[in-house]
């Protein structure tokens, strides 16, 4: 008899491989701008892996969840973004 349970997004993302660097490869350039966000918190809405969260009065970034899609930097020009250092970041088992 097998038991089925629905996988959460986190379960599924966990199946990817991440090599996490010490420093984040993305950052908010001017956090003061977030207080009057002109993009309706698009970063939180578009990120497929919940990198961005609003905590108290600022955006927090969980960069080790980043799948490097680049959606965040398209919807907000206040996000600084560069590719992770060579060998770091996400790699896929199937691709």
């Amino acid at each position, binding site marked *: 008899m097998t038991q089925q349970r629905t996988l959460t997004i986190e379960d599924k993302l966990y199946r990817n491989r991440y090599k996490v660097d010490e420093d984040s490869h993305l950052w908010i350039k001017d956090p003061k701008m977030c207080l009057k966000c002109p993009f309706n918190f698009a970063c939180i*809405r*578009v990120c*497929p892996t919940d990198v961005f969260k609003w905590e108290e009065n600022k955006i927090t970034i969980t960069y080790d969840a980043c799948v490097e899609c*680049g*959606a965040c930097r*398209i919807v907000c020009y206040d996000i600084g973004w560069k590719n*992770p250092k*060579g060998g770091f970041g996400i*790699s896929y088992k199937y*691709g």
Partner: protein
Amino acid sequence: MFGGVIFRHHTEQIAPEFWKTAPIERHVVEYQYWFLSKDSHLLLSHRNQRFNSKYNAFTVHRAKFDPWFAKLAEDAGATIINRTTADNVIKENGKIVGVKTERGDIFGEVTIAADGVNSLLSKQAGLKEELPPDAVVLAVKEVIGLPKQKIEERFNLGPDEGVAAMLIGWGPGMHAGFMYTNRDTVSLGIAINLHVACRGRRDQGSKGQGNPIDTL
């Protein structure tokens, strides 16, 4: 990361009869187009027996295919440098002559940025502006394990035959997707226009446009 399929016509110009040695999953014999609404669909499909002998396209997994393809480049004289990020281009007299990496500079007559539609290098080089949200689609993909025989039963396929499907939907908001049969997995993807994703909600139980990963 891609859907997806490798097309015979383009790839064989670089690697003749590549399917004989490349790690492919299935050769496509049927293309499907699913037009989806909230509770119905219209399915248009083209199955072609000729694709069993004159191959048209192949489903692959990039993590297996790319190393094979890179080896071809190496055999042809290329040097593959892994785990090195090209951060910026190098310009001399207005011409791009190479790239800066964290491990040093690399120069060349021609620099090709193969980092996709969202190319950071192209942007840094001043060759293109950032894309506006409504010009971009964000897709997420899941690879689902399904026994080889089950795939063949459900999709009505012979042992190495495959299906490539495009999904186009409405409700709410325009969205798209893809479905590819691999050997013993199915690649399933959902995509949404970024402009629409901006309007969606990410809270629990959201039935709005939302983020494609919630749909998946």
